[in-house]
């Protein structure tokens, strides 16, 4: 069985790319090629011009950080703080910086109280945040997150969206694999749709999400705000990106019609 067939794509520096598609479509398999964890059996993968078959995962990892879909496959340390500092020390960050980044990451992801605890005792969502903390603490050029919102409540998701904005403003390249279309929609990434090991669409999320037939084939559904927009008789030129957007439009319409 081949998990991926004939996939070609280019991700440019500073881009935000999201990948959606049915269970087993090949999303995880694809992103694991980004740091050489998997090497292609046919074709090639270049990261910053270097063929992943001609270098090591250790070298590539300095540039590309991948947070795994299943935290249990990533976490291995005896304590939360050692888990986060591992990569930092490995990449020879000065101790002061290690301490600073560690504090930031634990605070930001609400894990401070578990600093000395074993990662094994964390709740599902906490484990997931720890995997994100580990990657973001050392600030790689390319950030690959496989299903980062799994197990996260709305406050944590809002923080995650904040991280994306921060990474985008500092020119990082982001690849996010996610089934969470409600989370992806306001970020308005370039969207790749995968199905049966192939990339079946690649483009602006607003265009792709409007193509119901395409979505159906990849078992993806439309975000709520786009469904709302499609059902309106009179509507703005572009879909609502978030709730405040829709609220403002309703308020504007009422004012225009002299209601409220």
């Amino acid at each position, binding site marked *: 069985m081949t998990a991926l067939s004939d996939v070609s794509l280019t991700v440019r520096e500073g881009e935000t790319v999201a990948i959606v598609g049915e269970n087993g479509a090949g999303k995880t398999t694809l992103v694991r090629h980004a740091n050489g964890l998997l090497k292609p059996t046919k074709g090639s993968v270049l990261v910053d011009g270097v063929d992943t078959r001609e270098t090591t995962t250790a070298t590539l990892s300095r540039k590309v950080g991948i947070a795994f879909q299943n935290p249990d496959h990533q976490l291995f340390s005896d304590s939360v703080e050692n888990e986060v500092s591992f990569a930092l020390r490995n990449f020879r960050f000065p101790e002061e910086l290690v301490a600073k980044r560690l504090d930031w990451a634990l605070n930001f992801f609400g894990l401070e109280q578990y600093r000395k605890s074993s990662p094994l005792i964390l*709740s*599902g969502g*906490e484990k997931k945040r720890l995997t994100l903390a580990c990657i973001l603490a050392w600030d790689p050029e390319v950030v690959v997150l496989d299903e980062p919102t799994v197990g996260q409540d709305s406050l944590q*998701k809002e923080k995650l969206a904040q991280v994306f904005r921060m990474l985008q403003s500092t020119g990082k390249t982001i690849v996010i694999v996610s089934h969470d279309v409600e989370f992806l929609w306001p970020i308005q990434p370039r969207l790749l749709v995968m199905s049966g090991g192939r990339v079946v669409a690649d483009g602006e999320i607003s265009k792709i999400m409007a193509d119901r037939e395409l979505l159906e084939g990849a078992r993806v559904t439309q975000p*709520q705000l786009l469904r709302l927009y499609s059902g309106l008789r009179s509507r703005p030129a572009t879909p609502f990106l978030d709730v405040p957007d829709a609220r403002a439009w309703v308020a504007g319409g009422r004012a225009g019609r002299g209601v*409220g």
Partner: protein
Amino acid sequence: MSATTIRLGGKKVLASVEGLSFRYPDSQKPAVKDVSLEIGEGEVVLLAGPSGCGKSTLLRCLNGLIPHMYPGDYRGGVTVSGLKVADTPMSTLSQSVGLLFQNPENQIFMFSVERDVAFGLQNLSVPREEMRARVDEAMRLLGISDLAQRAPHELSDGQKQRAALAGVMAMRPKVIILDEPTSLLDPKTALDVVSLIGRLNRELGITFIVVEHRLELLIPIADRLIVMDSGSKVMDGPPREVLADPRVEGYGVSVPPVSRLYNALSRDGVRLPRVPETPEEMAEELNAL
């Protein structure tokens, strides 16, 4: 005031939790703090709240993993289907209560998907033919029939979750407890699982207790939404009412965009004649403004 009794109406109480507290060894604070609740036969109950608030711990108390498999400081009592959980062996409890783990990987361990789906059923005294039929049906409903002979470790994470779900559903226990059952599923499969829950509930009267962050999916079939925070139960009522309560967003409950918009419009003085549950209903309401 006893909102629970009113809500349960004439329904028989199937599970009851009384003054339950649980603290894991070595942790300073209890993961579940003085929780009391009753669940009626045939209810679909959603459990939400911030990550780390104690949802999975409460579920473990309901199916008996706590106190039977997890040591710790246990106070209060839990009764499910007439059985006192702390005094009933896991093997007996598992005939009445099925639990889908948050991480499916901790639940599938046989050499084939089919074996895993059949695993729980084998311990119930179900005739061979019926077992075969139920396993096939569960695999079909979860879209994994063509993966039947695969080893579980050769599946994608979402396929693993589907296999684990098929195993729990095939058992058809009185109570099915699902810990984030759609967390790894593609959106369409997530919808399929929601309608499967609805069907098993209607047709077989199975009671469901479901922890889920993607509320927009489950709201349409839920009778009740319970919110926890820091180990305590903080809200409990019909989903519409709970979601319309301004406190709910503060507890990290993912209020679906349409409900958030409805709440925002209400604050702006826009009164819609009904509370829309879907984007399409919201569009109709706005078109009529």
